[in-house]
Protein backbone atom coordinates (compact mmCIF):
# COMPACT_ATOMS: atom_id res chain seq x y z
CA UNK A 1 0.00 0.00 0.00
CA UNK A 2 2.82 2.38 0.97
CA UNK A 3 4.71 1.43 -2.21
CA UNK A 4 1.63 2.10 -4.36
CA UNK A 5 1.17 5.55 -2.79
CA UNK A 6 4.88 6.30 -3.27
CA UNK A 7 4.60 5.19 -6.91
CA UNK A 8 1.60 7.41 -7.59
CA UNK A 9 3.39 10.30 -5.87
CA UNK A 10 6.49 9.85 -8.08
CA UNK A 11 4.37 9.72 -11.25
CA UNK A 12 2.50 12.84 -10.12
CA UNK A 13 5.79 14.67 -9.41
CA UNK A 14 7.19 13.65 -12.81
CA UNK A 15 4.12 14.98 -14.63
CA UNK A 16 4.40 18.25 -12.69
CA UNK A 17 8.10 18.44 -13.62
CA UNK A 18 7.25 17.87 -17.29
CA UNK A 19 4.55 20.54 -17.17
CA UNK A 20 6.93 23.04 -15.55
CA UNK A 21 9.71 22.32 -18.05
CA UNK A 22 7.22 22.64 -20.91
CA UNK A 23 6.06 26.10 -19.79
CA UNK A 24 9.40 27.31 -18.36
CA UNK A 25 12.34 25.55 -20.05
CA UNK A 26 14.77 27.77 -18.09
CA UNK A 27 13.70 26.22 -14.77
CA UNK A 28 15.67 23.02 -15.34
CA UNK A 29 18.66 24.52 -17.14
CA UNK A 30 20.94 24.58 -14.10
CA UNK A 31 20.61 20.93 -13.13
CA UNK A 32 20.56 19.64 -16.70
CA UNK A 33 23.96 21.19 -17.44
CA UNK A 34 25.62 18.92 -14.83
CA UNK A 35 25.38 15.64 -16.83
CA UNK A 36 26.42 17.56 -19.97
CA UNK A 37 29.60 18.68 -18.16
CA UNK A 38 30.33 15.08 -17.15
CA UNK A 39 29.46 13.23 -20.37
CA UNK A 40 30.59 15.78 -22.98
CA UNK A 41 34.39 15.43 -22.39
CA UNK A 42 34.05 11.72 -23.24
CA UNK A 43 31.89 12.54 -26.26
CA UNK A 44 34.56 15.03 -27.30
CA UNK A 45 37.29 12.36 -27.02
CA UNK A 46 35.27 9.73 -28.93
CA UNK A 47 34.24 12.17 -31.68
CA UNK A 48 37.85 13.38 -31.91
CA UNK A 49 39.08 9.80 -32.34
CA UNK A 50 36.45 9.06 -35.00
CA UNK A 51 37.30 12.28 -36.84
CA UNK A 52 41.00 11.42 -36.65
CA UNK A 53 40.45 7.91 -38.08
CA UNK A 54 38.11 9.11 -40.84
CA UNK A 55 40.61 11.92 -41.52
CA UNK A 56 43.38 9.37 -42.13
CA UNK A 57 41.08 7.52 -44.49
CA UNK A 58 40.17 10.69 -46.37
CA UNK A 59 43.69 12.11 -46.54
CA UNK A 60 45.76 9.06 -47.39
CA UNK A 61 43.48 6.69 -49.24
CA UNK A 62 41.80 9.21 -51.48
CA UNK A 63 44.98 10.75 -52.91
CA UNK A 64 44.09 9.57 -56.40
CA UNK A 65 40.99 11.72 -56.62
CA UNK A 66 42.66 14.59 -54.76
CA UNK A 67 44.77 15.72 -57.74
CA UNK A 68 41.69 15.97 -59.92
CA UNK A 69 39.79 17.75 -57.20
CA UNK A 70 42.75 20.11 -56.71
CA UNK A 71 42.54 21.28 -60.33
CA UNK A 72 38.82 21.94 -59.97
CA UNK A 73 39.36 23.77 -56.69
CA UNK A 74 42.06 25.97 -58.24
CA UNK A 75 39.63 26.94 -60.96
CA UNK A 76 36.97 27.69 -58.36
CA UNK A 77 39.47 29.69 -56.29
CA UNK A 78 40.33 31.95 -59.18
CA UNK A 79 36.61 32.60 -59.69
CA UNK A 80 36.21 33.25 -55.97
CA UNK A 81 39.11 35.73 -55.94
CA UNK A 82 37.50 37.60 -58.80
CA UNK A 83 34.17 37.61 -56.92
CA UNK A 84 35.93 38.77 -53.75
CA UNK A 85 37.40 41.75 -55.57
CA UNK A 86 33.95 42.67 -56.78
CA UNK A 87 32.65 42.34 -53.21
CA UNK A 88 35.40 44.61 -51.88
CA UNK A 89 34.45 47.21 -54.46
CA UNK A 90 30.79 46.93 -53.51
CA UNK A 91 31.65 47.14 -49.80
CA UNK A 92 33.73 50.27 -50.35
CA UNK A 93 31.03 51.92 -52.40
CA UNK A 94 28.48 50.86 -49.76
CA UNK A 95 30.55 52.52 -47.03
CA UNK A 96 30.88 55.67 -49.11
CA UNK A 97 27.17 55.80 -49.74
CA UNK A 98 26.33 55.16 -46.07
CA UNK A 99 28.63 57.98 -45.08
CA UNK A 100 27.11 60.15 -47.72
CA UNK A 101 23.62 59.45 -46.43
CA UNK A 102 24.72 59.81 -42.79
CA UNK A 103 23.17 56.38 -42.33
CA UNK A 104 23.62 53.80 -39.62
CA UNK A 105 26.78 51.70 -39.60
CA UNK A 106 26.47 47.96 -39.23
CA UNK A 107 28.68 46.44 -36.61
CA UNK A 108 29.50 42.84 -37.42
CA UNK A 109 28.57 40.23 -34.89
CA UNK A 110 31.34 38.44 -33.00
CA UNK A 111 31.43 34.74 -33.73
CA UNK A 112 32.97 31.59 -32.32
CA UNK A 113 33.42 28.42 -34.34
CA UNK A 114 32.64 25.14 -32.59
CA UNK A 115 32.68 21.46 -33.35
CA UNK A 116 29.69 19.15 -32.97
CA UNK A 117 30.71 16.41 -30.54
CA UNK A 118 27.44 14.64 -29.92
CA UNK A 119 23.87 14.32 -31.08
CA UNK A 120 20.63 13.82 -29.20
CA UNK A 121 20.19 10.34 -27.68
CA UNK A 122 16.43 10.52 -28.19
CA UNK A 123 14.90 9.96 -31.63
CA UNK A 124 12.27 12.60 -30.80
CA UNK A 125 14.48 15.59 -30.07
CA UNK A 126 16.87 17.33 -32.39
CA UNK A 127 19.74 18.82 -30.42
CA UNK A 128 23.52 18.67 -30.69
CA UNK A 129 26.31 19.22 -28.18
CA UNK A 130 29.12 21.60 -29.22
CA UNK A 131 32.60 21.88 -27.72
CA UNK A 132 32.35 25.57 -26.72
CA UNK A 133 30.68 26.92 -23.63
CA UNK A 134 30.43 29.78 -21.19
CA UNK A 135 34.21 30.20 -21.07
CA UNK A 136 34.17 31.04 -24.81
CA UNK A 137 31.53 33.70 -24.39
CA UNK A 138 28.55 31.58 -25.38
CA UNK A 139 25.28 32.41 -23.64
CA UNK A 140 21.83 30.88 -23.72
CA UNK A 141 19.91 32.03 -26.79
CA UNK A 142 22.96 32.61 -29.01
CA UNK A 143 22.14 31.86 -32.67
CA UNK A 144 24.07 29.04 -34.34
CA UNK A 145 24.67 28.99 -38.08
CA UNK A 146 26.68 27.25 -40.79
CA UNK A 147 27.57 28.72 -44.20
CA UNK A 148 24.48 27.02 -45.66
CA UNK A 149 22.11 28.77 -43.27
CA UNK A 150 20.57 28.84 -39.80
CA UNK A 151 21.20 25.77 -37.64
CA UNK A 152 19.56 26.56 -34.32
CA UNK A 153 20.08 28.31 -31.01
CA UNK A 154 21.89 27.54 -27.76
CA UNK A 155 19.47 26.26 -25.11
CA UNK A 156 21.82 25.06 -22.38
CA UNK A 157 25.36 26.14 -21.49
CA UNK A 158 27.98 24.61 -19.23
CA UNK A 159 31.52 25.90 -18.74
CA UNK A 160 33.04 24.20 -21.78
CA UNK A 161 30.07 22.72 -23.66
CA UNK A 162 26.69 23.86 -24.95
CA UNK A 163 23.49 22.25 -26.15
CA UNK A 164 22.04 23.57 -29.41
CA UNK A 165 18.38 23.18 -30.32
CA UNK A 166 18.18 22.63 -34.08
CA UNK A 167 15.53 24.42 -36.13
CA UNK A 168 14.06 21.03 -37.13
CA UNK A 169 13.16 20.29 -33.48
CA UNK A 170 9.49 20.43 -32.53
CA UNK A 171 10.21 23.10 -29.88
CA UNK A 172 12.04 25.42 -32.26
CA UNK A 173 10.53 28.56 -33.80
CA UNK A 174 12.16 31.12 -36.10
CA UNK A 175 10.52 34.31 -37.33
CA UNK A 176 11.03 34.23 -41.07
CA UNK A 177 10.02 35.79 -44.35
CA UNK A 178 9.93 34.78 -47.97
CA UNK A 179 12.71 36.64 -49.77
CA UNK A 180 10.74 37.29 -52.97
CA UNK A 181 7.28 38.27 -51.68
CA UNK A 182 8.29 39.35 -48.09
CA UNK A 183 5.48 37.15 -46.67
CA UNK A 184 6.06 36.64 -42.93
CA UNK A 185 5.54 33.61 -40.75
CA UNK A 186 7.08 31.30 -38.17
CA UNK A 187 9.31 28.38 -39.13
CA UNK A 188 8.66 25.43 -36.82
CA UNK A 189 10.44 22.09 -36.70
CA UNK A 190 8.71 18.75 -37.12
CA UNK A 191 11.44 16.53 -35.63
CA UNK A 192 11.97 15.28 -39.19
CA UNK A 193 14.16 16.71 -41.94
CA UNK A 194 11.63 19.36 -42.99
CA UNK A 195 10.04 22.36 -41.29
CA UNK A 196 6.65 24.00 -41.60
CA UNK A 197 6.02 27.68 -42.23
CA UNK A 198 3.17 28.71 -39.93
CA UNK A 199 0.84 31.72 -39.92
CA UNK A 200 1.40 32.65 -43.55
CA UNK A 201 -1.69 34.44 -44.81
CA UNK A 202 -3.56 32.90 -47.75
CA UNK A 203 -3.36 36.17 -49.66
CA UNK A 204 0.46 36.03 -49.67
CA UNK A 205 2.10 34.88 -52.86
CA UNK A 206 4.33 31.88 -52.12
CA UNK A 207 5.66 29.48 -54.72
CA UNK A 208 7.63 26.26 -54.54
CA UNK A 209 11.34 27.06 -54.68
CA UNK A 210 11.05 30.45 -52.95
CA UNK A 211 13.92 31.30 -50.62
CA UNK A 212 13.03 31.67 -46.90
CA UNK A 213 15.23 33.92 -44.73
CA UNK A 214 15.23 35.05 -41.11
CA UNK A 215 13.29 38.25 -40.47
CA UNK A 216 15.35 39.34 -37.46
CA UNK A 217 12.17 40.24 -35.57
CA UNK A 218 12.45 37.40 -33.02
CA UNK A 219 15.56 39.03 -31.56
CA UNK A 220 17.54 35.79 -31.79
CA UNK A 221 18.65 35.42 -35.41
CA UNK A 222 20.11 38.30 -37.40
CA UNK A 223 18.05 39.41 -40.38
CA UNK A 224 18.69 37.92 -43.79
CA UNK A 225 20.18 34.54 -42.88
CA UNK A 226 19.15 31.73 -45.17
CA UNK A 227 16.84 29.08 -43.70
CA UNK A 228 15.61 26.97 -46.59
CA UNK A 229 13.39 26.87 -49.63
CA UNK A 230 9.68 26.31 -50.02
CA UNK A 231 9.10 22.67 -50.94
CA UNK A 232 5.33 22.52 -50.80
CA UNK A 233 2.33 24.86 -50.61
CA UNK A 234 -1.24 23.87 -49.80
CA UNK A 235 -3.82 26.64 -50.09
CA UNK A 236 -7.16 25.34 -48.82
CA UNK A 237 -10.53 26.89 -49.70
CA UNK A 238 -11.21 27.78 -46.07
CA UNK A 239 -9.03 29.29 -43.35
CA UNK A 240 -6.90 32.40 -43.26
CA UNK A 241 -3.51 30.67 -43.40
CA UNK A 242 -1.86 28.45 -45.99
CA UNK A 243 0.19 25.34 -45.26
CA UNK A 244 3.78 25.73 -46.37
CA UNK A 245 6.57 23.16 -46.12
CA UNK A 246 10.16 24.37 -45.99
CA UNK A 247 13.24 22.24 -46.61
CA UNK A 248 16.26 23.63 -44.72
CA UNK A 249 19.47 24.28 -46.62
CA UNK A 250 21.49 22.78 -43.79
CA UNK A 251 22.11 19.05 -43.91
CA UNK A 252 21.61 18.22 -40.23
CA UNK A 253 22.88 14.67 -40.67
CA UNK A 254 26.31 15.93 -41.72
CA UNK A 255 26.67 18.72 -39.21
CA UNK A 256 30.29 18.86 -38.04
CA UNK A 257 31.31 22.48 -37.44
CA UNK A 258 29.09 25.42 -36.60
CA UNK A 259 29.45 29.17 -36.01
CA UNK A 260 27.95 30.72 -32.88
CA UNK A 261 27.06 34.43 -32.83
CA UNK A 262 28.18 35.45 -29.35
CA UNK A 263 27.18 39.08 -29.72
CA UNK A 264 24.30 40.16 -31.91
CA UNK A 265 24.84 42.43 -34.87
CA UNK A 266 24.27 45.93 -33.62
CA UNK A 267 23.39 49.08 -35.42
CA UNK A 268 24.72 52.40 -34.35
CA UNK A 269 24.43 55.81 -35.88
CA UNK A 270 27.64 57.13 -37.28
CA UNK A 271 28.52 60.59 -36.12
CA UNK A 272 29.15 63.00 -38.94
Amino acid at each position, binding site marked *: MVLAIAGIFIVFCSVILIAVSDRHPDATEGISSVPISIISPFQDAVTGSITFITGIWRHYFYLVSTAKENDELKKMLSQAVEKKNQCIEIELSNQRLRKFLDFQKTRMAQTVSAEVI*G*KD*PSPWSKTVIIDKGRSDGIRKGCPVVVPDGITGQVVSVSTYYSKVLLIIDRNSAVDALVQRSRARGIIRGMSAEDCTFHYVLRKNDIRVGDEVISSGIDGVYPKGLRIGYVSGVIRRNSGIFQEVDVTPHVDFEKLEEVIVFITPAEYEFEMP
Partner: protein
Amino acid sequence: MIPYIVYSCACIFLLILKTAVLSNFALFNNFYDILLPVVLYLGLFRPLSQGLPLIFFYGFCMDSMTGGLFGFYILVYFLLFIAMRWTIQFLHARSFLLKPFIVLVGVLIENLVLFLLFVLFHRNWVVSGSFLHSVSIQLFWAAITGPFFLIAIDYTQIRFSDWLEEKVSMERKMENKRDRIS
Protein backbone atom coordinates in the same frame (compact mmCIF):
# COMPACT_ATOMS: atom_id res chain seq x y z
CA MET B 1 28.34 0.42 -3.87
CA ILE B 2 30.31 -1.21 -6.71
CA PRO B 3 27.19 -2.25 -8.72
CA TYR B 4 25.91 1.35 -8.62
CA ILE B 5 29.21 2.63 -10.00
CA VAL B 6 29.30 -0.07 -12.70
CA TYR B 7 25.72 0.61 -13.84
CA SER B 8 26.35 4.39 -13.80
CA CYS B 9 29.44 3.90 -15.97
CA ALA B 10 27.36 1.67 -18.27
CA CYS B 11 24.84 4.50 -18.59
CA ILE B 12 27.54 6.99 -19.58
CA PHE B 13 29.10 4.47 -21.97
CA LEU B 14 25.76 3.77 -23.70
CA LEU B 15 24.95 7.47 -23.97
CA ILE B 16 28.31 8.15 -25.60
CA LEU B 17 27.80 5.18 -27.92
CA LYS B 18 24.43 6.56 -29.02
CA THR B 19 25.33 10.25 -29.26
CA ALA B 20 28.89 10.14 -30.59
CA VAL B 21 29.25 6.81 -32.42
CA LEU B 22 25.91 5.51 -33.71
CA SER B 23 24.77 9.02 -34.67
CA ASN B 24 27.48 9.05 -37.36
CA PHE B 25 25.67 6.29 -39.25
CA ALA B 26 22.44 7.15 -41.04
CA LEU B 27 21.31 3.54 -40.53
CA PHE B 28 20.84 4.19 -36.80
CA ASN B 29 18.98 7.51 -37.18
CA ASN B 30 15.81 6.16 -35.62
CA PHE B 31 17.39 3.63 -33.29
CA TYR B 32 15.39 3.19 -30.10
CA ASP B 33 16.42 4.52 -26.68
CA ILE B 34 19.61 2.63 -25.93
CA LEU B 35 19.21 2.78 -22.13
CA LEU B 36 15.84 1.04 -22.32
CA PRO B 37 17.13 -2.58 -22.26
CA VAL B 38 19.20 -1.81 -19.13
CA VAL B 39 16.17 -0.23 -17.43
CA LEU B 40 14.08 -3.31 -18.27
CA TYR B 41 16.85 -5.58 -17.05
CA LEU B 42 17.07 -3.68 -13.75
CA GLY B 43 13.32 -4.08 -13.32
CA LEU B 44 13.35 -7.78 -14.12
CA PHE B 45 16.50 -9.05 -12.43
CA ARG B 46 17.84 -6.58 -9.88
CA PRO B 47 16.50 -5.83 -6.40
CA LEU B 48 14.26 -2.81 -5.88
CA SER B 49 16.79 -1.02 -3.67
CA GLN B 50 19.41 -1.24 -6.43
CA GLY B 51 17.21 -0.68 -9.45
CA LEU B 52 15.19 2.31 -8.28
CA PRO B 53 18.04 4.83 -7.67
CA LEU B 54 19.69 3.72 -10.90
CA ILE B 55 16.61 4.24 -13.06
CA PHE B 56 16.20 7.75 -11.63
CA PHE B 57 19.84 8.43 -12.45
CA TYR B 58 19.33 7.05 -15.98
CA GLY B 59 16.22 9.16 -16.44
CA PHE B 60 17.96 12.28 -15.19
CA CYS B 61 20.91 11.75 -17.56
CA MET B 62 18.64 11.18 -20.57
CA ASP B 63 16.46 14.18 -19.73
CA SER B 64 19.56 16.36 -19.44
CA MET B 65 21.07 15.20 -22.70
CA THR B 66 17.92 15.48 -24.83
CA GLY B 67 16.17 18.63 -25.87
CA GLY B 68 12.69 17.32 -25.07
CA LEU B 69 10.47 17.73 -22.04
CA PHE B 70 12.51 17.45 -18.84
CA GLY B 71 11.14 14.65 -16.68
CA PHE B 72 9.84 12.52 -19.54
CA TYR B 73 12.52 9.83 -19.24
CA ILE B 74 12.31 9.80 -15.42
CA LEU B 75 8.58 9.11 -15.76
CA VAL B 76 8.93 6.51 -18.53
CA TYR B 77 11.75 4.61 -16.84
CA PHE B 78 9.86 4.58 -13.55
CA LEU B 79 6.69 3.29 -15.25
CA LEU B 80 8.65 0.60 -17.10
CA PHE B 81 10.46 -0.39 -13.91
CA ILE B 82 7.12 -0.77 -12.07
CA ALA B 83 5.68 -2.68 -15.05
CA MET B 84 8.63 -5.12 -14.98
CA ARG B 85 8.29 -5.64 -11.20
CA TRP B 86 4.60 -6.36 -11.75
CA THR B 87 5.28 -8.73 -14.66
CA ILE B 88 7.63 -10.96 -12.69
CA GLN B 89 4.85 -11.64 -10.22
CA PHE B 90 3.14 -13.67 -12.95
CA LEU B 91 5.97 -14.75 -15.25
CA HIS B 92 9.41 -16.05 -14.44
CA ALA B 93 12.01 -13.37 -15.19
CA ARG B 94 14.04 -15.80 -17.30
CA SER B 95 10.98 -17.11 -19.11
CA PHE B 96 11.45 -17.74 -22.83
CA LEU B 97 8.24 -15.75 -23.35
CA LEU B 98 9.74 -12.57 -21.96
CA LYS B 99 13.16 -12.14 -23.52
CA PRO B 100 12.26 -11.93 -27.24
CA PHE B 101 9.47 -9.40 -26.74
CA ILE B 102 10.27 -7.38 -23.64
CA VAL B 103 12.36 -4.66 -25.37
CA LEU B 104 9.78 -4.44 -28.15
CA VAL B 105 7.02 -3.90 -25.56
CA GLY B 106 9.24 -1.41 -23.70
CA VAL B 107 9.79 0.69 -26.84
CA LEU B 108 6.06 0.57 -27.56
CA ILE B 109 5.20 1.76 -24.02
CA GLU B 110 7.81 4.54 -24.23
CA ASN B 111 6.35 5.85 -27.47
CA LEU B 112 2.82 5.52 -26.13
CA VAL B 113 3.70 7.64 -23.07
CA LEU B 114 5.35 10.20 -25.36
CA PHE B 115 2.23 10.26 -27.54
CA LEU B 116 0.01 10.80 -24.48
CA LEU B 117 2.24 13.60 -23.21
CA PHE B 118 2.20 15.31 -26.61
CA VAL B 119 -1.58 15.12 -26.66
CA LEU B 120 -1.74 16.39 -23.06
CA PHE B 121 0.64 19.33 -23.43
CA HIS B 122 0.29 20.23 -27.12
CA ARG B 123 -3.37 19.95 -28.00
CA ASN B 124 -2.91 20.95 -31.64
CA TRP B 125 -0.37 18.17 -32.17
CA VAL B 126 -1.36 15.53 -34.74
CA VAL B 127 0.21 12.16 -35.53
CA SER B 128 2.37 12.77 -38.57
CA GLY B 129 3.76 10.30 -41.07
CA SER B 130 7.27 10.91 -39.77
CA PHE B 131 6.16 10.01 -36.22
CA LEU B 132 4.72 6.66 -37.35
CA HIS B 133 7.76 6.03 -39.54
CA SER B 134 10.10 6.65 -36.60
CA VAL B 135 8.07 4.42 -34.26
CA SER B 136 7.99 1.56 -36.77
CA ILE B 137 11.77 1.74 -37.30
CA GLN B 138 12.35 1.79 -33.54
CA LEU B 139 10.14 -1.30 -33.16
CA PHE B 140 11.98 -3.02 -35.97
CA TRP B 141 15.36 -2.39 -34.29
CA ALA B 142 13.94 -3.44 -30.91
CA ALA B 143 12.67 -6.72 -32.36
CA ILE B 144 16.04 -7.50 -33.95
CA THR B 145 18.51 -6.33 -31.32
CA GLY B 146 16.46 -6.27 -28.09
CA PRO B 147 16.80 -9.97 -27.11
CA PHE B 148 20.55 -9.91 -27.79
CA PHE B 149 20.93 -6.77 -25.71
CA LEU B 150 19.20 -8.44 -22.77
CA ILE B 151 21.27 -11.62 -23.15
CA ALA B 152 24.48 -9.55 -23.25
CA ILE B 153 23.52 -7.56 -20.13
CA ASP B 154 22.53 -10.75 -18.30
CA TYR B 155 25.78 -12.49 -19.26
CA THR B 156 27.87 -9.48 -18.17
CA GLN B 157 25.97 -9.20 -14.89
CA ILE B 158 26.47 -12.93 -14.09
CA ARG B 159 30.19 -12.76 -14.89
CA PHE B 160 30.55 -9.58 -12.88
CA SER B 161 28.71 -11.08 -9.86
CA ASP B 162 30.95 -14.18 -9.99
CA TRP B 163 34.07 -12.01 -10.15
CA LEU B 164 32.84 -9.86 -7.27
CA GLU B 165 32.02 -12.90 -5.09
CA GLU B 166 35.40 -14.43 -5.85
CA LYS B 167 37.15 -11.19 -4.92
CA VAL B 168 35.21 -10.84 -1.68
CA SER B 169 35.94 -14.47 -0.66
CA MET B 170 39.64 -13.96 -1.47
CA GLU B 171 39.76 -10.86 0.70
CA ARG B 172 38.05 -12.73 3.53
CA LYS B 173 40.58 -15.55 3.26
CA MET B 174 43.43 -13.05 3.36
CA GLU B 175 41.94 -11.37 6.41
CA ASN B 176 41.58 -14.73 8.16
CA LYS B 177 45.20 -15.53 7.39
CA ARG B 178 46.33 -12.17 8.74
CA ASP B 179 44.29 -12.73 11.92
CA ARG B 180 45.87 -16.14 12.43
CA ILE B 181 49.38 -14.77 11.94
CA SER B 182 48.77 -11.89 14.37
